[in-house]
C-alpha cells in the first residue's frame, strides 16, 4: 500500500511537469493550429540559461524569474520573426520549421554547455513531509509551483482585458480583427507565454532528472500524450491529461511493464488516443468542410 501511494505521488509530480508542457502545447495549438515540436528543446534551453545564471552566483528565485522573462521574450521573438512570415505556408513547411528549431536548440545547448550532465539546484529542502516516507517536500513543491502558475494563468485569461483579447483572437481571428485586436501580436504573446510555461517545467524537472540537452525529449512526448488525452483544444483538459498520464506512467511502469519501455508506452497512448478518441476528454472534434 505504501508503495502504491509513493508511486501515486511520484505520478502526480511528473504529472505536473507533463501538465505544464501540455499546457504550453495547447496554448500554441489553440491560437495557431500548430503543434510546436520544439517546445521541449526550448524549455531545456531556458533551463540551461537558468543554470548559467545560478552558476554565476545569482540567487535561485532571481534566476527563476529572469529565465521566465527571457523565455517569454524568446518565444515572442520566434513567433514574430521566424514563424509569422511562413504563416500561409503549407503544413509540411511549418512542421519542418519546428523540427529545425528543435535541432538548433538541442545543438546549441550541447555546443555551449556540452553534453555532460549537470546538477540543477532545487529550492526545496530534501526531506519528507512530516517524516512520512510517502511524500517529499520537493514533490509538494513541484506540484505546488505548477498549481500556482496555473492559477495565475487562469486569472490572467479570465479576469484581464488582455487575456480576454488573446482568447478571442485564438477562437475567432476574423471577428477579433473586426474588434480592432491586433491578432498577430496576440499570437506572439501566446508563444511567449507558452515558452515561459515550458521554462518553468524545465526548471522544475531538472533537479530530478539532471540537466542535459536531451532531458526534455521523453518529457515532451509525455506532454503530447497528456495534451491528447485531455483534448488538445482545451487548456483545462491539457492539465488534467498531464496529471492522468503522469500517474499512469508511474503505475504502469511500476506494476506492469517496468521502467524501460516508458517511451513505447507514450507512443501507445498517443496512437491509441488519436485512433479512439482524437478529441480527448475535453476537446471538441473539428469537422472539416469540403
Amino acid at each position, binding site marked *: 500500500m505504501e508503495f502504491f501511494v509513493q508511486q501515486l505521488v511520484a505520478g502526480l509530480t511528473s504529472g505536473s511537469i507533463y501538465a505544464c508542457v501540455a499546457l504550453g502545447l495547447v496554448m500554441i495549438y489553440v491560437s495557431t493550429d500548430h503543434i510546436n515540436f520544439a517546445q521541449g528543446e526550448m524549455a531545456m534551453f531556458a533551463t540551461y540559461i537558468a543554470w548559467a545564471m545560478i552558476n554565476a552566483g545569482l540567487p535561485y528565485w532571481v534566476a527563476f524569474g529572469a529565465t521566465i522573462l527571457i523565455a517569454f521574450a524568446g518565444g515572442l521573438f520566434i513567433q514574430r520573426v521566424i514563424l509569422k512570415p511562413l504563416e500561409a505556408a503549407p503544413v509540411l513547411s511549418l512542421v519542418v520549421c519546428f523540427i529545425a528549431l528543435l535541432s538548433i536548440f538541442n545543438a546549441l545547448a550541447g555546443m*555551449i554547455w556540452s553534453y555532460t550532465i549537470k546538477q540543477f539546484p532545487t529550492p526545496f529542502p530534501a526531506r519528507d513531509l512530516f517524516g512520512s516516507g510517502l511524500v517529499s517536500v520537493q514533490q509538494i513543491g513541484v506540484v505546488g509551483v505548477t498549481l500556482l502558475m496555473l492559477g495565475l494563468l487562469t486569472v490572467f485569461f479570465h479576469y484581464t482585458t488582455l487575456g480576454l483579447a488573446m482568447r478571442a483572437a485564438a477562437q475567432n481571428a476574423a471577428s477579433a480583427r473586426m474588434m480592432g485586436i491586433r491578432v498577430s501580436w496576440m499570437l506572439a504573446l501566446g508563444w511567449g507565454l507558452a515558452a515561459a510555461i515550458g521554462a518553468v517545467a524545465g526548471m522544475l524537472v531538472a533537479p530530478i532528472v539532471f540537466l542535459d540537452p536531451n532531458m526534455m525529449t521523453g518529457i515532451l512526448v509525455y506532454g503530447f500524450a497528456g495534451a491528447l488525452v485531455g483534448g488538445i483544444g482545451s487548456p483545462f483538459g491539457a492539465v488534467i491529461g498531464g496529471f492522468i498520464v503522469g500517474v499512469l506512467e508511474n503505475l504502469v511502469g511500476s506494476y506492469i511493464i517496468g521502467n524501460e519501455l516508458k517511451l513505447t508506452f507514450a507512443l501507445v497512448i498517443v496512437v491509441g488516443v488519436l485512433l479512439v478518441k482524437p478529441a480527448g476528454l475535453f476537446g471538441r472534434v473539428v469537422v472539416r468542410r469540403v
Partner: protein
Amino acid sequence: MAAVTNSWVNKRGPGGIAIAFWILLALLPFGERFVAEGSFDYYMFMGQAMLINAIAILGLNLLIGFNGQISLGHSAFFAVGAYTAAILMNFAGWPYWATLPVAAVVCFVAGFLFGFPALKLEGHYLALATFTLAIAVPQLLKYKPIGKWTGGVGGLLLDKPDAPGWSGLGQDQFLYYVCLLIAILAFWAVRNVLRGRGGSAMMAIRDHVMAAGTMGIDTARYKTVTFGLSAAITGVAGALSAITVAFVAPDSFTLQLAVSFLVGLVVGGIASLPGCLIGGAFIVLIQNSSQSISDWMKATFSISYDVPAWAIYGVLLIALMYFMPRGIMGGVEAVTQRIVNRRGT
C-alpha cells in the same frame, strides 16, 4: 510548399540525362588513380553511404512528396530493416543479399500496419505520431528481454561481406556496386509505380484527398499501401546500411536520423526523384564536413565552440523554407522552365 511539377511522369522512357547519370555513377569506382593514396576505400564508403541515404530518402519522398502524407519517424523503418538484416546474418547465417528482400517485406508489413492508424491522422497529428515513434524506437531496441536478439545497448557487430573472386574488385568497390544496383532497382521500381494508375491515384490523394475519394479512388487502400512501400524502401536502405557499416546499435537510429532524411528530402526537392540523390549526397557531405565547417566558423566568427551538424541542419531547413522551399531540383526546374519559355517566344 509547392512540389516539383511531375510532368516527367508522362514521358516515355527514362530521360537520356538519367541514364547518363547512372552510367557515370557506375564508372566512379574506376577513378582510383585520381584520388590520394589510401583514401580510395574511404571515398567508396562515402559513395555507399550517399546511395543508401538516397534510397532511404526515396522511400520518404514516396510518402511525403507523392502521396501527401508525412513522417518524422522513418528512422524507425530504417532501423527495422537494419536489424532484420543483422539478425538474419548474425544468428541464421544468411548471406547478405538474401536479407534484402526479407527486410523489404518486414518493413512493408510494418509500414502498412502503421498506415492504418495513420489514415485517421493528417498533417500535424501524423507528424506527432511518427515523431513519437522515432523517439520510442531507440529505447525499444535497448529493451533487455529482446537483448538476446538485438545485442542491447552495445548492438551487434557483423561481418562485412567480401567481394566475390570473379569480380576482381576490392571489398568497398564491390559493396559500392551492390548499393548502386539496389538504388537503380529502387528508383526504377518507384518510377514505374508513379507512371502507372497507382501513381496517379497516389498523387490525386496528395493534391485533393476529398476529390480523389469522390472519383472512386479507394483512398484508404492507397494510403496504407503507400506507407508500406515507403517503409519497405527505407527499410532496404537500412539493411544495406547494416551490411556496409557491419554494425547496428540502437543509438544509430534516433530522431536525428529521421531529421536528416527530412533535410535531404527538402534540400533535394520534394516529389523529385533526382532530388533524392542530391539529398543523399548532401547529408553525407554535411556529416563529413561538419568538423571543417565548424573550424571555418570558429576562424571566421571567432566562436570557441564546435558547430554540430544538427545545428547546421536546423538553420539550413529554416533558410530553405524561406528561400528555396522546392529544394535544389525545384530551382533547377524553375531555371529550365524559364529557358523553355524564352525559346518559345
